[in-house]
């Protein structure tokens, strides 16, 4: 309860017999678990939007609800970012101490996670009891019927193990994990955005500002479009070259042949270029993967079928990605991945990065960071990413990753219940603010609006402002248009790596990618069990589609004029 109002909008009750039997069956243990709760509140969960008493009540509920499952060991898996490492090392241990349920919380590569959840769906084996799976999978989960609809579960068989103070309305990313059928399949555990990052201190230097304006004819500032981003990249990499005796670069990215190369582009790079249609969250009828929809049915990715994956805008997006990597990024960037590149900018050699995941913000605020001033404040800022030549008002502006707790129906009921308890513990108000302050991946509005998070604003370079604005709703994950993320995502890195190795032109690679996506969509369309299954459009001459308003869009003959804004004006868009 908060402000005297019920905090969960669904009718969930913990039955008295369960509480009584739980307490009665483990009278001696109850003290152990209460002591553990007190110890964890004193030593770790010191920051919370709940009072100490409310935290104790919440932990007592976990201890009592867990009673039937004590001694059990459950297995969950998540991707390799700091938030999940914290959960694996700290929260899993706290949960064991407070409830008596052992948790093996594995942390692994995002692509491993994709393969593992797909394997459990295919094989029927109970490989894990819970997954923190990106909500990019929502199109898969609502279609296949193999995923537990949490909104159903917490009202029925899971009612007794659903936290009364879960407060679903407090989660900012609930829509991301909700299918078109209105059911919640994935409960957000962490969220991070993809934003523009730059060295505010360098951009603020009068000598560099004068030099830039003299050479390019407009002020050095936060780029609003790719034309300005490219000029700034060229300025720092080729003209400035060194600051304080150190080689610096006007652009940073990654290009190793690795699965993460795929999501570097499938995470909304095409929508930033302007390849899709207007409309949120993903663009309709053509989305950020270039897939055209008809109602809830994907009907094609290639231009010939009405998609935009090999459209001029998509080819332009890939061309710029490769050109900038080759011309303006440090040579090491070609050998870096999502994980290894994310922390690279903390070394202090990069002036700006067009597409930077805020999951790596803890590296920038760490004591080893070289992008923090002597007063402890950041030398950098984050701002909305600049947009490509085809982008129009009303289109998706950026990507947000939302890792959501996801459970498959073939999980045995007792293991599912125990895993659901752990999931709720990791997002409970008792622990969520402390988790946010350590890892900076917010999920709850109450935490975002908290005094403690607000106090961090001067040290987080714009992250607090981003999450306190409406931007948190319009930076969106991959949407429901992608009917089988695991089956389709592997094509991206395979074709993009050919462009980076000069084995294919951007146009050839995107045409081959669109063909592979279309073939798989057609195969998926033959699955009679799939909801909203793909129904491919028959191919038509590309010119027919290109002359129709919206995506796929014809080739632009003129490039936009470069535009920059001062930082404050730039973030007013949020």
């Amino acid at each position, binding site marked *: 309860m908060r402000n005297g109002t019920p905090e969960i909008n669904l009718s969930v009750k913990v039955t008295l017999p369960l509480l009584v039997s739980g307490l009665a069956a483990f009278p001696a243990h109850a003290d152990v678990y209460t002591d553990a709760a007190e110890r964890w509140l004193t030593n770790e969960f010191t920051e919370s939007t709940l009072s100490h008493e409310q935290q104790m009540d919440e932990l007592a509920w976990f201890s009592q609800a867990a009673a039937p499952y004590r001694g059990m060991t459950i297995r969950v898996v998540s991707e390799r970012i700091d938030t999940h490492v914290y959960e694996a090392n700290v929260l899993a241990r706290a949960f064991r101490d407070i409830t008596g349920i052992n948790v093996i919380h594995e942390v692994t590569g995002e692509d491993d996670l994709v393969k593992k959840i797909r*394997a459990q769906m295919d*094989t029927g084996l109970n*490989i894990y009891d819970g997954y923190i799976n990106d909500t990019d999978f929502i199109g898969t989960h609502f279609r296949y019927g193999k995923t537990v609809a949490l909104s159903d579960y917490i009202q029925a068989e899971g009612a007794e193990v659903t936290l009364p103070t879960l407060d679903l309305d407090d989660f900012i990313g609930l829509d991301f994990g909700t299918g078109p059928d209105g059911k919640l399949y994935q409960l957000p555990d962490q969220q991070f955005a993809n934003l523009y990052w730059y060295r505010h201190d360098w951009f603020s230097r009068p000598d560099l500002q004068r030099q830039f304006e003299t050479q390019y004819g407009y002020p050095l500032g936060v780029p609003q479009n790719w034309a300005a981003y490219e000029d700034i990249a060229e300025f720092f990499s080729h003209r400035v070259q060194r600051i304080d005796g150190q080689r610096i670069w006007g652009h940073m990215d990654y290009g190793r042949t690795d*699965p993460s190369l795929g999501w570097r582009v499938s995470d909304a790079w095409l929508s930033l270029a302007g390849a899709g249609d207007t409309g949120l969250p993903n663009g309709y009828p053509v989305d950020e993967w270039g897939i055209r929809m008809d109602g809830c049915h994907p009907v094609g990715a290639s231009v010939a079928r009405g998609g935009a994956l090999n459209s001029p805008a998509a080819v332009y997006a890939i061309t710029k990605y490769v050109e900038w990597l080759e011309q303006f990024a440090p040579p090491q960037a070609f050998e870096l991945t999502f994980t290894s590149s994310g922390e690279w900018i903390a070394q202090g050699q990069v002036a700006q990065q067009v597409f930077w995941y805020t999951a790596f913000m803890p590296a920038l605020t760490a004591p080893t960071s070289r992008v923090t001033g002597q007063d402890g404040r950041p030398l950098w800022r984050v701002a909305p990413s600049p947009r490509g030549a085809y982008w129009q008002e009303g289109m998706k502006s950026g990507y947000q990753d939302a890792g959501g707790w996801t459970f498959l129906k073939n999980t045995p009921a007792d293991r599912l219940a125990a895993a659901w308890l752990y999931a709720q513990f990791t997002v409970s108000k008792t622990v969520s603010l402390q988790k946010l302050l350590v890892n900076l991946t917010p999920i709850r509005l109450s935490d975002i609006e908290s005094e403690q998070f607000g106090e961090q604003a001067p040290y987080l370079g714009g992250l607090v402002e981003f999450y306190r604005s409406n931007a948190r709703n319009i930076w969106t994950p991959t949407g429901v248009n992608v009917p089988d993320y695991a089956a389709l995502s592997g094509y991206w890195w395979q074709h993009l790596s050919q462009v980076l190795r000069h084995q294919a032109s951007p146009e050839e690679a995107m045409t081959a990618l669109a063909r592979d996506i279309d073939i798989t969509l057609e195969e998926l369309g033959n699955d009679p069990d799939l909801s909203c299954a793909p129904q491919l459009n028959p191919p038509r001459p590309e010119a027919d589609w290109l002359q129709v308003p919206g995506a796929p869009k014809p080739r632009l003959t003129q490039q936009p004029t470069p535009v920059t804004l001062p930082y404050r004006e730039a973030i007013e868009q949020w």
Partner: protein
Amino acid sequence: MVILRRLTGILLLLTACGGSRADEPLTLLTFDIPPLVNEQEGRQASGYAYRVVERMFELAGDEFRLEFQPPKRALRSAMELPNTCAFPVDRSQERETSLSWIGPVSVSRHGLYSHPDRPHPIATLDDARQWSISSYLGSGVGEYLQTQGFDIHLASKPYLGLLMLQANRVDLWIADTRAAPLIARAQGIELNEPELVFFTTLRSMGCNTSIPQERLRKLERALLTLYRNGELADIIELAP
């Protein structure tokens, strides 16, 4: 004449490539890791991962030739040699782009084992950072922990890691929880329950990327059929 000879050469090469693809059995490299794969005399094998692979080829109407190699060499050979696959290999993001994958042919739980005389209670994986740990070359889990900064010592074969534990050269040994008791018994070594079963891997067949995708897709479809018709449920038992 020069042109003709060159054309003839190209035609011969194309014919040879085509013949190789259509007619030659795939070379499957594996290693002794009971009960997943048991090496037997005369290049024969048993074990449940082997049975999965065998059934998959039967159903797909394809053929293979089996060879045993140490795991690391098997993995490298599959990456470098045409028409070659290795199994049962831990599939991981780091290895994803080096091979074409079909699987899982087994799902493995991996435990941390201590010497019965020197127990090291471990609640989460992070607790193991203070200890030295043995595994084997080619183990995806060993590589995974190395990249996470753990003190890992890699032996050339799975059982040698246990001998390192026995000889007090390391504090913990990583092993597949089904393989560990069998390896210990074969070596005449007493082994307790694992301190922590900390990681799960999908073990798959990793194939050279030059093998035509259509051939691999046929095998993959066969494997999926075996999973869906329930035939593999009896072969692959997975402890919770």
